[in-house]
């Protein structure tokens, strides 16, 4: 019998190792996130993150200072009632569970200068997201899949912002290396002979996340599914180290094309599902086509791109890295959440009222050329993007090293 038992253990050990011993390829992560995004759209709407973080920040201000912030011209929803705030929190939990399961969790305290960069990057992201009405999801990962031309403009802005901030980082590391060096600490980490507890706690964290999702089924099955899919997103992001910042940044730094290809894989999968959903009229075709074409999209994209490159994670990237324990990214999220309500009131709202309506429109490509040609145009765009990152990887033309 002992023999059978040991065989059983080894099968389970093999299963564990399949999921948790090595990081998954980024394109696998991209495809899974694309599928999750389609599921989310079927439940209600596509994936987004900046709205969720705004609601966190605005609720905090309203409860402490009675600031009276609203949301998109209406009353402010409670954090536990707003699907995107729930997704953000469950994504964080899913990533924490995955990091613990794979013994990669530790509270990692970087030098003080890095914490400040996290905070500043977060503040800049908060401004960019409110001006551009999107983050890397609404204006890139989900926005392109929704066939929004504004998302293409926002993404080009992200690329420009990333390029600017990479220049800054190179300058900083060369001229002011002290900013990123100094006293650091790592707490609760796993390593040789320690951290055997992590996978067990990781399983508990994931079960807790599922219980949260299940509890919502009483009040709203939509929120329950949002929670479950959020948990899945966090799990996949951490295991594949899926990163939309890297997708745009690596061509300017190391030249690595894998993150960009991961992003493309996810967008293409989601685009297929979104197009079916929109074409068949299952959901409103204008969903995730934001009124930011083209001035707010380009400005917001550049600003957000600068912020995410300085902090080292967009909203989603910061959430899953925070789940893994990187203190810098907690500060990025705090910076974004605390900035967004004020950025909306004092920067985005005045900007939108000053701009002519022709410069802040929703442009849904199929309205102009039909669905077939839209897919064709995006296919050419992705092929060109793929060719460019692969060519750059070989030649190092745009890469710093």
């Amino acid at each position, binding site marked *: 019998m002992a023999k059978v038992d040991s065989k059983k253990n080894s099968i389970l050990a093999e299963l564990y190792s399949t999921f948790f011993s090595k*990081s998954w390829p980024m394109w696998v992560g991209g495809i899974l996130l694309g599928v999750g995004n389609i599921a989310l759209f079927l439940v209600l709407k596509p994936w987004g993150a900046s709205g969720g973080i705004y609601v966190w920040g605005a609720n905090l201000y309203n409860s402490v200072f009675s600031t009276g912030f609203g949301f998109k011209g209406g009353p402010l929803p409670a954090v536990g009632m707003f699907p995107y705030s729930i997704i953000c929190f469950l994504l964080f939990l899913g990533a924490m569970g995955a*990091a613990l399961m*794979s013994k*990669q969790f*530790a509270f*990692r*305290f*970087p*030098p003080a200068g*890095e914490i400040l960069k996290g905070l500043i990057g977060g503040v800049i992201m908060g401004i960019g997201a409110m001006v551009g009405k999107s983050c890397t999801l609404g204006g890139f990962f989900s926005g392109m899949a929704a066939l929004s031309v504004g998302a293409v403009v926002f993404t080009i802005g992200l690329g420009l912002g990333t390029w600017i901030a990479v220049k800054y*980082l*190179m300058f900083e*590391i*060369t001229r002011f*290396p002290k900013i*990123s*060096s100094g006293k*650091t*600490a*790592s707490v609760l*980490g*796993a*390593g*040789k002979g320690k951290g055997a507890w992590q996978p067990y706690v990781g399983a508990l964290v994931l079960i807790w996340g599922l219980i949260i999702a299940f509890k919502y089924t009483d009040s709203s099955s939509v929120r329950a599914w949002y929670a479950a899919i959020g948990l899945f997103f966090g799990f996949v992001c951490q295991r594949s*180290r899926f*990163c939309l910042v*890297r997708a745009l*940044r690596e061509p300017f*730094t*190391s*030249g*690595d094309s894998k993150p960009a290809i991961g992003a493309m894989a996810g967008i293409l999968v989601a685009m297929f599902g979104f197009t079916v959903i929109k074409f068949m009229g299952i959901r409103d075709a204008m969903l995730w086509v934001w009124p930011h074409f083209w001035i707010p999209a380009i400005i917001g994209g550049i600003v957000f791109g600068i912020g995410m490159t300085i902090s*080292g*994670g967009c909203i989603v990237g910061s959430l899953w*890295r925070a789940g*893994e324990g*990187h203190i*810098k*990214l907690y500060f990025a999220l705090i910076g974004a959440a605390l900035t967004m309500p004020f950025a909306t009131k004092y920067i985005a709202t005045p900007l939108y009222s000053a701009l002519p309506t022709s410069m802040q429109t929703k442009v849904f490509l199929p309205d102009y050329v039909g669905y077939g040609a839209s897919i064709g145009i995006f296919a050419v765009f992705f092929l060109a993007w793929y060719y460019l990152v692969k060519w750059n*990887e070989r030649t190092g033309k745009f890469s*710093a*090293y």
Partner: protein
Amino acid sequence: MQSDQVLDCKGLSCPMPIMKLAITMKKFETDKVLELLTTDPGSKEDVPAWCERTGNDLLETVEEGDGFAFFIRKG
């Protein structure tokens, strides 16, 4: 393993370890060995991939304490 210089990137998250590594290696002499210390789980895959792409030799990876020590010879 012996190294000629240590680059401490403990506590740093992506992209700082790889960017600091790349900038340090630029000024490094050929055949000298740099010891890179990191705690970011991503460096486990990113550092070997970077070495391969840039033609530097990753002589040894040691998992120690909460992170990694990479011994890289400039190629």
